[in-house]
């Protein structure tokens, strides 16, 4: 029997939700019937809106999907202006102020404290510069990820930007693929870095070459069924298909139609295509694709470039991100800037857009490591650009502990999380920077902090994986983390080994300090990466590498932040919440 969500989707879903949202925007929050909240909130996701958590009723997170994280400076400025005007809540965040934008691990933008009353105005502003919230969430084609510098990167096999644009235009707002059994995440990589992180996507196009009819053809190998969530992580499986660039849309259409038709609509926990690949095996996926969904003979897989991949690969001989100055094809440069935990103040967003425009950049890129790239900086302008004040805060040469940190949304806004995340990761980063010697040779050290097992910060593929938990300390329940080590992508993708459970949040920095001291003392030399160091050790050795301990680090969020209405409010008690409000910030009566 189809699930409740499937029934809601049958009643209304896809493009038509826009009209309903505009109606609610006109009539106000109260016009959404109380007994239909769950159904409408599920449908709103298709147009990029998630209702925030308990205590924040009537406020939404809005996600803007930017294919491969690419924007023009004008688009970025609009994001900053929308954030400044609309993404402000009743209480400021102590680290980030009253308005900010979050850059996500899937190269999208998230704004918080959005009210339904403002939706029409926000869409007007975003759409006037070609931005959209369409299908940013919900059961459909999500934002397509890949390298934002495709076509500029001096180190790539194929410029995938034209192909990604075609996919985006074909599958956004397309009724045939609007209602899938679950989300559909696609990555396309054309470079030698592996920067699409295709292994953790439902559908991955990986760069490859193949000799066809005597010609050496550059294209893609096709992998299916990756994903990290639900305590069931999978890397995308090789279905032995090579895809020419001109066939990418047909293959993508075939596979998303296959998912639409054969995916499990009776159990949302079993709905992602990774479970269908588990059940069928890659061979059957290939044969059904061939027999039912494409009308040409699919070539077998070609020769991939995996051995060159370095993006989030934990290699000692190459940085695993885009931070710093890089050469473009055309002799100009792109500059990767660190954005700690992906959150940038709205004023900084606007300033960055102005700066990029001043320097003649036509491309801003958001990366899957929650950082930002400014493209097209001329050689002659490079020194002046690097000397700009904004780059003191968002640096192209950040400290390794600031550079590699990723965090999800956490209890600040998210209904699932059980711990505070972003502000804590900022505090961890600063403390580590100020107190822990960086092992010689380490340029970037990846710490991914996720608030629960939903894995939005991709905790299984980091040097150090932190996943929210609880523990007891001095008789009190406190926020804590399970700790994993040694995950990463690259030539041989590996999920982290989980070595500690329930480390109190205030003892995590001490644990990392002790761990890195052991690493530097016991490794074979700087050429042995942390990931290799972990891979060389068995379970017992890993568990014994370091102990957690209290240090000078202080954690203001140790208590149970999920029980507050907002973790940073002066009166954080759930009963002190002003929500729901009427769109002007005035509290409305609530039955809750």
């Amino acid at each position, binding site marked *: 029997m189809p699930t409740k969500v499937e029934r809601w989707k049958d009643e209304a879903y896809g493009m038509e939700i826009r009209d309903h949202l505009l109606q609610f925007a006109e009539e106000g929050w109260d016009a959404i019937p109380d007994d239909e909240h769950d159904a409408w909130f599920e449908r709103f996701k298709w147009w990029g809106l998630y209702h925030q958590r308990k205590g924040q009723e009537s406020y939404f997170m809005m996600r803007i999907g930017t294919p491969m994280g690419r924007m023009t400076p004008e688009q970025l400025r609009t994001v900053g202006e929308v954030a400044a005007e609309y993404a402000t809540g009743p209480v400021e965040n102590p680290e980030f102020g009253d308005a900010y934008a979050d850059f996500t691990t899937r190269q999208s933008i998230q704004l918080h404290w959005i009210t339904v009353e403002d939706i029409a105005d926000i869409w007007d502003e975003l759409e006037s510069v070609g931005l959209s919230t369409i299908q940013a969430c919900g059961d459909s084609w999500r934002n397509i990820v890949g390298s934002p510098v495709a076509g500029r990167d001096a180190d790539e096999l194929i410029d995938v930007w034209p192909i990604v644009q075609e996919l985006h235009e074909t599958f956004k707002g397309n009724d045939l693929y609007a209602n899938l059994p679950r989300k559909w995440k696609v990555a396309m990589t054309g470079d030698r870095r592996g920067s699409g992180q295709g292994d953790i996507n439902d559908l991955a196009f990986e760069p490859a070459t193949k000799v066809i009819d005597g010609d050496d053809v550059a294209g893609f190998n096709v992998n299916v069924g990756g994903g990290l969530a639900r305590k069931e992580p999978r890397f995308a499986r090789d279905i032995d298909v090579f895809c020419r660039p001109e066939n990418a849309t047909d293959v993508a259409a075939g596979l998303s139609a296959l998912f639409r038709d054969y995916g499990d609509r009776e159990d*949302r926990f079993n709905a992602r295509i990774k479970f269908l690949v588990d059940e069928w095996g890659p061979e059957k996926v290939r044969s059904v694709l061939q027999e039912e969904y494409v009308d040409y003979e699919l070539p077998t897989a070609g020769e991939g470039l995996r051995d060159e991949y370095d993006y989030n690969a934990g290699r000692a001989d190459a940085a695993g991100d885009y931070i710093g100055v890089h050469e473009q094809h055309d002799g100009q440069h792109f500059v990767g800037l660190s954005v700690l935990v992906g959150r940038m103040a709205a004023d900084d967003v606007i300033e960055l857009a102005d700066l990029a425009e001043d320097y003649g950049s036509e491309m801003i890129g958001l990366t899957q490591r929650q950082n930002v790239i400014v493209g097209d900086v001329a050689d002659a302008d490079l020194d002046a650009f690097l000397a700009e004040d904004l780059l003191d805060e968002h640096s192209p040469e950040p400290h390794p502990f600031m550079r590699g940190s990723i965090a999800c949304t956490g209890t600040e806004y998210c209904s699932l999380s059980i711990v505070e995340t972003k502000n804590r990761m900022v505090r961890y980063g600063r403390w580590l920077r100020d107190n822990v010697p960086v092992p010689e040779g380490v340029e970037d050290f990846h710490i991914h902090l996720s608030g*629960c097992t939903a894995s939005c910060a991709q905790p299984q593929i980091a040097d150090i994986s932190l996943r929210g938990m609880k523990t007891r300390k001095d008789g009190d329940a406190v926020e804590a983390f399970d700790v994993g080590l040694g995950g990463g992508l690259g030539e041989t993708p590996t999920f982290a080994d989980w*070595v500690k459970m329930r480390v109190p949040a205030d003892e995590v920095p001490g644990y990392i300090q002790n761990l890195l001291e052991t690493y530097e003392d016991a490794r074979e030399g700087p050429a042995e990466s942390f990931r290799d160091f972990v891979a060389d050790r068995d379970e017992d050795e890993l568990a014994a590498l370091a102990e957690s301990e209290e240090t000078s680090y202080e954690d203001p969020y140790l208590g149970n932040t999920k029980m507050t209405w907002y973790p940073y409010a002066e009166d954080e008690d759930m009963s002190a919440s002003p929500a729901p409000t009427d769109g002007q910030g005035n509290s409305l009566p609530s039955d809750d």
Partner: protein
Amino acid sequence: MADRVLKVNAFTTFDLLDGHVEGHGFTEAAFATLNVRTAREDPEEITLELELDNTELESVPPHADRVTLSAADARTLASELTDAANRVAAAEDE
């Protein structure tokens, strides 16, 4: 080392309980998660699932335990738990 078997998020019933595992010749203590689950749609039974932190246990492999309850079973359990809670509360008041 093995990852947790059960997912843990804000909807988990208990993410921090004291647990024990006991067998012939061994007893070990560990923190535990305990969750009550029903199908989202037309549920026919209740699942009670329990997992002790495997990093604290040597005598048993990483695992979770599940029992299924009928609605009547669940009410019986709830009733017994309520009675027990009342007895504990009464004892605390004395």
